[in-house]
Every structure is written in C-alpha cells, then in structure tokens.
C-alpha cells in the first residue's frame, strides 16, 4: 500500500451521493478540473480522476475506483510549477512538492527515526529507507487537456495565497528568524557609529560588547569572587567578629 500519508496526502475514500468529495460543513467548492491524472512520487500512477479545489485544500477522486482519492491542504504544498514537455518524454503537467513539516533530519519526512537526509545513510532501518526513497513528496497532476495547465497553475497560486500560515504558533514578526548574534551586535555597533541613534545606542553606550554573553561572568564567577573576598578577610583579621559579608 502506498504510504501517501507520510508525505502529507490524506486518503479520501468516501464520496457524497453525487460522487463528489465529502466536504466539511463550511467548506466551499471553488473549482473542479476533469480528467486529471495523478502520479504520486516517482511513478505511482493513480490513473485519471477529477481534481476539486476548495478554499483550504485540494481533493482528487479517481474516475475508475470509487474508494480511491486523496486530499491535501494548501499549507502542505511547498511549491508548484508547470512542467512542460521539453527534452523529456513526460506529458505536460503540474508538478508539486509537499512539505508536511515532518522533521526527519531535514528531509521530506522520509523514513522514521531521523536517518540522514541525503539518503546515503548506512545506519539502521535500511528497509524503511528503501521504501521511503520511492516516495519523494512529489505529485504530478497531468490534465488530459494541456490548455488546462495555466488554469491549474493559477488555481494553486490562489490557493496558497488564501491559506497563509497563521501566526498562532509564532510570537510575532521576530519569530522564526535566525541570525548570527555576533553579526547582529556588530551591526548595531556599526549603526551607532553611523549616527543612527535610538534605544540601542543608549543601551550600548560606550560598550558595544555589553550584551554579549561573557562566560566569565555569572553566578558561579560571582560566588568565586565572593569566596575569594571571604578568604582574604579571614587571612587579614583572625580576630574579626567573624560574620562573612553576606554569602
């Protein structure tokens, strides 16, 4: 059985009374494309079917097999493109890559247990890697009519635009940005030098390295310093009343 779910394709095995897709309560059907062949991964040909476009997802239902179908929501579609019949013998199609966010070593969610993303890993689970290698998260939608390709491409563009990521998971605009702290601080210092005032300038003052992590500072070092002071006091005055200062 094809493990389509591993790449983000959900099975759609039920249909409504007219043979169309089972939609959610508030889900509206926007478009449909007849006679579209679906190929999953490298060569798993699902045959011809009908592609339905709703607000939030796509649903493909097989023409021949009443219980065969798949759905995929737009956020899972990482990229899509028109692939025209150039040097290769493949028919013109809409090519899609899926990314369901599975993080197995940075690859497309292949296999289990985080094997190397390059697929060259020799460690463990050889069998599951071989199977997973067959299923790159690619889809090809091949319309019977090449003239439908532009409309298909556009439908997917619009679908992506209708379904941006929500910001529930992120704290705000700064979330998800990766940066090099040294470069960022150097940039801030440079900004000061260029005369860009503001809060950062005030805080940095004359010490551009103020916000850098200094391994030598911190609680342990402070304790060490306090302990050193204490030892010095004990050595200095053995007659002292003997209260160490505030350890």
């Amino acid at each position, binding site marked *: 059985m094809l493990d389509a779910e591993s790449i983000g394709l959900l099975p759609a095995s039920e249909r409504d009374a007219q043979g169309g897709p089972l939609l959610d309560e508030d889900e509206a059907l926007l478009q449909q494309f007849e006679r579209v062949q679906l190929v999953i991964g*490298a060569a798993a040909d699902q045959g011809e079917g009908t592609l339905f476009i709703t607000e939030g997802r796509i649903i493909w239902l097989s023409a021949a097999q009443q219980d065969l179908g798949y759905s995929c929501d737009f*956020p899972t*579609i*990482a*990229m*899509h*493109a*028109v*692939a*025209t*019949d*150039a*040097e*290769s013998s*493949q028919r013109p199609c809409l*090519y899609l*890559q899926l*990314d369901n966010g599975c993080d197995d070593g*940075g*690859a*497309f969610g292949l296999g289990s247990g985080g094997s190397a*993303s390059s697929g060259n890993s020799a460690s463990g689970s050889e069998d599951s890697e071989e199977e997973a290698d067959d299923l*790159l*998260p*690619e889809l*090809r939608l091949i319309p019977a009519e090449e003239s439908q390709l532009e409309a298909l*491409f556009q439908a*997917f*563009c619009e679908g*992506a*635009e209708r379904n*941006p*990521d929500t910001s529930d998971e992120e704290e705000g605009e700064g979330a998800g940005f990766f940066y090099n702290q040294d470069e960022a601080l150097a*940039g801030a210092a*440079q*900004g000061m030098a*260029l005369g*860009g005032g*503001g*809060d*950062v300038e005030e805080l940095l003052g004359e010490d551009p390295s103020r916000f850098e992590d200094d391994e030598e500072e911190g609680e342990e070092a402070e304790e060490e310093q306090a302990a050193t002071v204490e030892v010095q006091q004990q050595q200095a005055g053995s007659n002292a009343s003997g209260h160490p200062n505030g350890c």
Partner: protein
Amino acid sequence: MLFYSYFKTLVGKEVTVELKNDLAITGTLHSVDQYLNIKLNSIRVVNEQKYPHMLSVRNCFVRGSVVRYVQLPPGSVDVELLHDATRREARGG
C-alpha cells in the same frame, strides 16, 4: 512588511531560493507577495539529480512559509539601505 518591500525591489533579478527541505532553486524573481510567496521564472534546480522531474520546469511558485533562505545577487544589495530599514522597523518606526 519590510521584507516584502525589500524583495519587490529585486523583481527581475536572479535569486536562489533555498527551501526548508533543502531544495534550492535559482531563477529570475517574477513576483513576491505579502506572505513572501515567491514566483520564479526560468528556473534551474541546484540539485538536479534528486529531482529529475523538475528538469522541464520553467516557472514555479514557492510558498513563503517553506523558504529558508533567499540568496541575493551581491551587486544589487544596498546593505546600508537595508540596515537603515531594519533599524527603523525594529524600533517600530
């Protein structure tokens, strides 16, 4: 909106978009939207062997949320302008 505005200035330039799944695509920036969805024309894939089906792809649409990096042509980046803009944006200006 900073990056949206910035990328709009790069329309027509050649960029390389690296996705979070390690796919890297070089092409001419055709358009960008507020979610940083990117349309590229005349693309070529950096790792062609892994994705043979992409050999005949000319134009593509990349979802903004899957982009890891956008590599920019060095000559067309005004670093000071970008620094100024990011400082202003960081201060909420």
